[in-house]
């Protein structure tokens, strides 16, 4: 590869890195918007620390766990070392289509996403310390191990028909989704959500923030998926842009339709979740689909997210922002869709996709259960009821998010 193409590829991955970075603001805004104002400082505090945790742990160990090197090809786990050490020719095309540091920083921005997804599902009742502990372990260790299975050349990549997950429907989103499910389940629902008299709505405090969040996520997703081409190849990147845009748009309409049919109401929070579900859905096969297939995948994703929200509510698993429906249900759907539509569709692929989904499920469910359950049994994971009622902001942070404004009763 010549120096010009190397420089362009490298530049695109760096620009994509910045776009993935701003997704963290997207998550922060969405989650803050869909929860109550008495917990806003808390959720923002967590979502501000998560990218910092992701970057530092990934530099310290995650990158080496995820890309342990060829010696670990086909395996479950490997560790290439600790910290970042520059390989020979790190800044030339000897290393890759981009430099070593570009590789690291792009991957590191992905890493924190797993914990961000969890933070929404466990919002409004989890203690700060245990959440941060979970995040460090999950982002620093669990996420890169799963990532290694496929992207680091592990066993999912060496299946006869290799498991396929372009930008991480399973490897990023479902990993986060499983943690979210376990966390929300072990914590139990927020006080007042499921009462004897039935389920009660606990509206989020700011629809504008939630909307800003979803737009920023969609914005960043062009880098998330587009950067996962791992080069600036014109055909591939532009195809990925089209499928990403179409799937998000179709997701909006899938959720609009499903929520209107089910609830007879135009619920913007469902439309927002639908966009995200469309995006999560296309992520596994964004480079394999045409615009039509992207529309189907997105549309079904949008429908599934509405059914998912209802389903988890029936199970009394309380997820204030719909993270489980978006990232876990959407992630499974997108991963499966690679076997159903597009260039790789076929029975063998479906099987490989199921293996990937199943392996991730088992590992992530297990590890997040282990972490959350140990924390629950030792230091406890849930704030006292009085704190929860009064709000985490004033109790954990001694501060209000909007001290100037009078509150609705």
């Amino acid at each position, binding site marked *: 590869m010549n120096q010009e193409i190397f420089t362009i590829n490298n530049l695109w991955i760096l620009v994509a890195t910045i776009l993935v970075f701003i997704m963290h603001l997207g998550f922060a805004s969405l989650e803050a918007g869909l929860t109550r104002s008495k917990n806003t400082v808390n959720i923002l505090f967590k979502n501000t620390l998560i990218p910092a945790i992701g970057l530092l742990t990934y530099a310290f160990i995650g990158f080496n766990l995820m890309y342990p090197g060829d010696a670990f090809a086909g395996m479950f786990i490997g560790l290439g070392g600790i910290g970042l050490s520059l390989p020979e020719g790190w800044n030339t095309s000897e290393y890759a289509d981009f430099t070593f540091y570009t590789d690291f920083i792009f991957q590191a921005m992905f890493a924190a996403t797993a914990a961000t997804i969890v933070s929404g599902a466990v919002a409004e009742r989890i203690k700060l310390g245990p959440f941060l502990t979970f995040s460090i372990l999950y982002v620093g260790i669990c996420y890169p191990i799963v990532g290694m299975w496929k992207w680091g050349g592990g066993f999912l990549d060496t299946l006869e028909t290799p498991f396929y997950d372009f930008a991480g429907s399973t490897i990023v989103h479902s990993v986060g989704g499983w943690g979210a499910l376990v966390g929300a389940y072990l914590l139990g629902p927020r006080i007042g959500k499921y009462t004897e008299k039935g389920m009660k*709505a606990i509206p989020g405090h700011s629809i504008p923030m939630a909307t800003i969040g979803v737009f920023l996520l969609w914005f960043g997703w062009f880098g998330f998926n587009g950067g996962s081409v791992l080069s600036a190849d014109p055909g591939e990147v532009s195809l990925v842009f089209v499928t990403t845009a179409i799937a998000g748009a179709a997701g909006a309409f899938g959720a609009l339709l499903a929520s209107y049919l089910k609830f007879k109401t135009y619920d913007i*929070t469902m439309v927002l979740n639908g966009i995200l579900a469309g995006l999560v859905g296309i992520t596994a096969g964004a480079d394999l689909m045409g615009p039509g297939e992207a529309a189907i995948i997105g549309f079904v994703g949008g429908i599934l997210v509405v059914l998912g929200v209802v389903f988890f509510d029936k199970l009394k698993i309380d997820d204030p922002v719909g993270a489980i429906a978006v990232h876990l249900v959407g992630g499974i759907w997108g991963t499966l869709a690679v076997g159903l539509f597009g260039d790789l569709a076929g029975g063998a692929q479906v099987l490989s996709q199921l293996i990937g989904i199943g392996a991730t499920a088992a590992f992530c469910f297990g590890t997040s259960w282990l972490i959350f359950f140990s924390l629950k049994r030792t230091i406890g994971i849930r704030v006292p009821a009085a704190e929860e009622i009064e709000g985490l902001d004033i109790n954990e942070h001694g501060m209000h998010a909007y001290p100037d404004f009078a509150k609705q009763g």
Partner: protein
Amino acid sequence: MKKIEAIIRTSKFEAIYSCVAGLGVKFLTFYEVKGMGLEQARPQTYRGVAYEPAFIPRTKLEIVTVDALVQPVIDCILNEGATGEVGDGKIFVYDVLEAYRIRNKEQGEDAL
């Protein structure tokens, strides 16, 4: 001196205010309250869960005035504040023992 407290539809505030101002009432105080009553709050839904917010937003008006103006003020509110539908609100009248104007320490009816 009497205090007239009225819980009214927020949308009727301006009409009532013009009417009482026409009577020479120069001062009044009002604020937002929430009410429970015969009128049902409009049902809301959020993420598939239908719920009735427990209350209806209303405006509460307070006017302290001399006895002679009590009935005219009440008539203003009754006439201008009614739509004839459930939810129009109520008026209550209380006795006031004393009144002061903080600016110049005037007392009694002069202070109104």
